[in-house]
């Protein structure tokens, strides 16, 4: 399963839809995308992980990197995730305290 990446503007936010498998082989593409978005001035990012089928620590590391990047511009990075098996790895690693995680995209967009 290939990694798919699609982004669009929603008001003042940028929604990055991630699909497929994020591992050591595909994560560099996700990192490049986040670097590119921040470079273009997208500092308020919502990463929609509804269609992610696999995520391990390499992917977590890239998301943490994205968060640090937007924060250095006073931005923020929120996640949309409704899959228990993926939420679980955020919990185990303590990253639920680092990222705002929402069940739906609507909820993430309504969050101030």
């Amino acid at each position, binding site marked *: 399963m290939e990694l798919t990446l699609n982004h669009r503007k929603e008001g003042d936010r940028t929604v990055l839809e991630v699909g497929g*498998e994020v*591992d*050591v*082989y595909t994560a560099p593409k996700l*990192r490049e995308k986040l670097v590119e978005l921040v470079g273009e001035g997208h500092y308020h990012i919502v990463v929609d992980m509804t269609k992610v089928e*696999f*995520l*391990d*620590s*390499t992917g*977590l*590391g890239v998301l*943490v*990197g994205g968060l*640090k990047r937007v924060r250095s511009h006073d931005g923020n990075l929120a996640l949309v995730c409704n899959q*228990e*098996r993926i939420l679980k*790895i955020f919990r*185990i*690693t303590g990253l639920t305290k680092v990222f705002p995680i929402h069940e739906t995209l609507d909820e993430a967009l309504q969050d101030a």
Partner: protein
Amino acid sequence: MDLAELHLPRSVAYVGLARSIVASAARLAGLGGDRLEDLKIAVSESATHAVTAAQRDAEPLVLAFGPHEGAFEVHVLSPEPARRDPAVEALREWPDEGGLGLTLVEGLADAVLFPDSAHHQMVLRFDLPARTDVPEQARRSSGAPR
């Protein structure tokens, strides 16, 4: 302990194949549902570590796996586990975030063993459901026949 062995080119392109093959053997051995997802992540972490920690990519990545003493075991030989490859290290953007991989493996597996004191080998154990729940041949054909 007659484990199956998977030898893969030591490249990040093969980590996905590693986790999917080990998961299909674990399914045959009776591991199900969520535990298969846990196993996939843990195998991915170990394989990623073994591949990226290697100094030379000549030697293959070797995973040995199968049911053993009530659990599905995955043995991963990790070259150079203690030292970090400076080349790999240089690619890291967030050195302070290290340790996520091992944290996940320890959180997802029922047991993580380092049989040799130098930590060159890692054994992940995922408890199998009680034998009565598991089709007999599935168990045997995915590992130790007796």
